[in-house]
């Protein structure tokens, strides 16, 4: 059979500027999402932790009324924090797949393609956000069952989706950076364990900033998780209020994403050397 004598491709020309960039970015995301569809077990295992936190921690402290939550119940107060936590825990180990795929030679295949390095990073961030949206749906279901006072306005929901996606993109890309720096699975798991809890506790996820000692509050205020939680608390819960202002929340999240994107794009090719 004959393969040759193809007409040259007039079609490398883009239908609109950036079309190719978009296509490449989405191809990277698609690769990962297709794997998730083939084997969605991971999505289900991720659902256990938020249930435990809401059901046990949330319920118990709800009765204790030990934490000042500004007029809403403690369960309502931590529901956004637990959503953020579930997104964080899902995203923070995402980088290990990069190390895994490097060992299999898959990352090398992406890197020899002409796709700009930033599409390789952005595509992975997008696939991580797809996972986070599944977690969001699940946390909403559990919260409903526990009678958390959720808001369902279109704008509020859109805002929650945006905050969830941004948080997931930030922490999964941060995780890629860690993977590029440590390069081995063992070291990555070690560092991942060490990072997760401090990120979580040095935030306003389960107690307000006002309760924190000064040093912890200072750390919390540079932790993107705090801004994600603040935005979620404002948008998700009836009577929820913002400590930073919703505009500042999203600005800080966008800034954090820009920083991790830039660093990860720079480091990404070094994963194979």
């Amino acid at each position, binding site marked *: 059979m004959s393969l040759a004598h193809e007409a040259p*491709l007039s079609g490398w020309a883009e239908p609109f500027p950036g079309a190719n960039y978009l296509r490449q970015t989405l191809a990277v995301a698609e690769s990962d999402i297709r*794997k998730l569809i*083939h084997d969605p077990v991971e999505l289900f295992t991720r659902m256990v932790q938020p249930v435990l936190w809401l059901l046990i921690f949330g319920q118990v402290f709800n009765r204790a009324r030990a934490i000042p939550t500004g007029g809403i119940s403690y369960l309502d107060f931590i529901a956004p924090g637990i959503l953020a936590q579930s997104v964080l825990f899902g995203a923070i180990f995402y980088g290990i797949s990069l190390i895994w795929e490097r060992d299999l030679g898959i990352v090398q295949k992406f890197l020899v393609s*002409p796709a700009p390095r930033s599409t390789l990073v952005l595509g992975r961030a997008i696939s991580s956000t797809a996972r986070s949206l599944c977690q969001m749906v699940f946390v909403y279901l559990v919260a409903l069952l526990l009678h958390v006072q959720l808001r369902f306005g279109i704008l509020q929901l859109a805002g929650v989706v945006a905050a969830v996606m941004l948080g997931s993109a930030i922490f999964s890309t941060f995780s890629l950076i860690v993977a590029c720096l440590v390069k081995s699975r063992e070291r990555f798991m070690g560092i991942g364990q060490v990072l997760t809890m401090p990120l979580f506790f040095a935030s306003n996820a389960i107690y307000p900033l006002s309760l924190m000692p000064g040093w912890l509050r200072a750390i919390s205020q540079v932790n993107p998780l705090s801004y994600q939680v603040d935005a979620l608390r404002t948008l998700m819960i009836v009577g929820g209020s913002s400590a930073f202002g919703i505009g500042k929340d999203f600005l800080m999240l966008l800034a954090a994403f820009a920083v991790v994107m830039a660093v990860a794009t720079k480091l990404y090719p070094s994963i194979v050397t």
Partner: protein
Amino acid sequence: MENAPDSGSNAIEVLSLTRRFGTLVAVDHLNFSCASGATFGLLGPNGAGKSTLIKMLTTLLPPSEGTAKIAGFDLVQHPEAVRRKIGYVSQMLSADGDLTGYENLLISAKLYGIPRAERARRIAQAFEFMDLAHVSGKRVRQYSGGMIRRLEIAQSMLHRPSVLFMDEPSVGLDPSAKRSVWERIRELRREFGTTILMTTHDMEEADHLCDRVAVMHNGVLAAMDTPAGLKAQVGAEATLDDVFIHFTGATISEGGDLRDVARTRSTTQRLG
């Protein structure tokens, strides 16, 4: 073809290319060139620097010194332009086992910016050509080693590269799978005039496929000629095995550190 340069009689020109790892010089001021359309074979014992050379030529690994021109583009100055011109089949079996064969090719085609209509045509053709159409919807982890290799070669050719790099394309394959891979490689050459640079430990493979062969040892080229020319240099009745031993002082099965053993094992595992 796509995005200019090429032309010129050499598809690959390696200019004083060097790579160090700490104090180890894995590739040591190499200079050589490959004529357009030719198949160039690199022989050498484990650790000779073959994979390191290929990783530099495919832009995966930055050189410590020197550069190379691939299809008319400078590797160091215009890596993106080089990437548009090359295909790469790595030493590992690296098709994504968690995706189907079709999905593997689809993602590649999108990464290379091949427009939708053309994409479908080329993918269908690739499966046909590689005799994999019946398994295109199966996940690659169910493929045999020979099928994975054929899929990877198809994948690396979707965008019709001018230069194809293959690192030990038939390692770990049984004799008939190997033959079938060789056949496809020759066919591709005939159809597209692709320049091929491949590494191998397999003398029969080198004899079969390569127009020119270089023997690499400790990061430098110990000899370079046509297979027949190399044999003539060593002696009247010489085989490529004799050539290899003559220039490297090693037998082919000799050498190989822990890393090589581990890698061979993991390749074997993936072959299932």
